[in-house]
């Protein structure tokens, strides 16, 4: 059968192909026509574009870590288990902290679950203050994926908190991400808004040594644009991570 010029039939088959109900021999035959017929390919592309927004409501499910490993192997790239396995990451961290702290840091996070994704680009961390030998670091990760998403650091004597977003896709339109200090006792204290830009600096109330002294953990919550109106977290907590002192 030749369907060239038969617009209505073309359109119907393109729709059913994109929806997925065209099956069996009919599907194979249609795919053969597709290879030869540009207008048919266009009709399918239009139908795919019409229906694709339906996938917006399919719940994402993190694939097992081994899946990336298999892909990386087949494209000829040695598979790392994740950002923690990336040489670039450790090299940068060592630069940033001076070796000993990197070792301590490694101990702290070695219990983190393996990250199912690769380290896409070298992470180059900048020293938070002139004193690179002492300070606080925190890596906040997404508990659902175990993936690190925000890196926070501050020099011991500095009132500047450096916030590095490792995954720009965490930004939510019309909402703000707010960073909280979770002290050992007492209510969470806001540290400011995470811009979602790759790098940002927040101002602490006082030097990190004072303001983060009793803070074992940081968290990011989803808040209305501009931040929590009440001064306490109101939205869901998206990311958390231990805040580690080293000196």
């Amino acid at each position, binding site marked *: 059968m030749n369907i060239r010029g038969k617009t209505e039939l073309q359109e*119907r088959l393109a*729709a*059913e192909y*994109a*929806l*997925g*109900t065209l*099956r*069996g021999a009919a*599907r194979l035959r249609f795919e053969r026509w597709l290879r030869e017929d540009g207008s048919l390919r*266009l009709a399918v*592309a239009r139908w*795919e*574009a*019409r*229906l*694709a*927004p*339906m*996938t*917006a*409501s*399919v*719940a*994402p*499910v*993190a*694939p*097992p870590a*081994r*899946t*990336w490993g*298999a*892909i*990386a192997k*087949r*494209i*000829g*790239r040695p598979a790392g288990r994740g950002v923690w396995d990336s040489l670039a990451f450790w090299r940068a961290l060592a630069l940033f902290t001076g070796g000993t702290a990197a070792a301590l840091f490694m101990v702290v996070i070695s219990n983190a679950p393996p990250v199912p*994704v*690769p*380290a*896409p*680009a070298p992470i180059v961390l900048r020293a938070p203050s002139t004193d690179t030998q002492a300070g606080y670091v925190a890596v906040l990760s997404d508990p659902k*994926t175990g*993936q690190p998403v925000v890196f926070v650091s501050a020099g011991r004597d500095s009132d500047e908190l450096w916030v590095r977003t490792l*995954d*720009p*896709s965490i930004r939510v*339109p019309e909402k703000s991400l707010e960073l909280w200090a979770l002290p050992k006792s007492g209510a969470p204290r806001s540290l400011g808004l995470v811009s979602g830009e790759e790098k940002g600096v927040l101002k602490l109330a006082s030097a990190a040594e004072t303001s983060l002294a009793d803070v074992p953990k940081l968290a990011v919550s989803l808040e209305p644009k501009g931040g929590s109106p009440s001064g306490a977290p109101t939205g869901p907590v998206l990311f958390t991570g231990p805040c580690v002192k080293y000196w």
Partner: protein
Amino acid sequence: MAGDPLAELLAGCARKDPSSLARLYELTSAKLFGVALRILRREDWAEDVLQECYLRFWNHAGEYKAGLAAPMTWMSSIVRNRCLDWLRRPGFEVADPDDAIASATPSDVAGPLAELERAADAAAIARCLKTLEAKQRQAIALAFYDGLSHSELARHLQEPLGTVKTWVRRGLLRLKSCLETS
């Protein structure tokens, strides 16, 4: 879409830059795995399909045409098509003589349909799906989300094959005219 970071990553794949594929995987694999898992209902199959599809993105990224489709549309269509191919592997259909797989398909498409209304970038399709008759909407959702064929739809909805085919065809026509006027 101009400046879509996924389009730039596909361009990176076309240049054979492994870090582009890594980043693309990082940003899209959970969504695409969700799509495959819903159709195939078996994690090991969905994993195999996902693997094949990322290799396909890697090898065929140069064929992606930004003017024709958004990157996520292009990628999710490849995943859905690959899932359907997977379901029609030789022997697969006879491997389900008791309809075990067909009957295991949950009829619950209400979840994704309701969720669709909350998804910002799906406003038009959500609104247009609502203009369909309930049976048409259910048939289209089961076909799209669960990968059911006409005969599986007929069995699942306990209606004659011809009736189900008509629902799907009319539903798609109405969906198209609604989307074109919105």
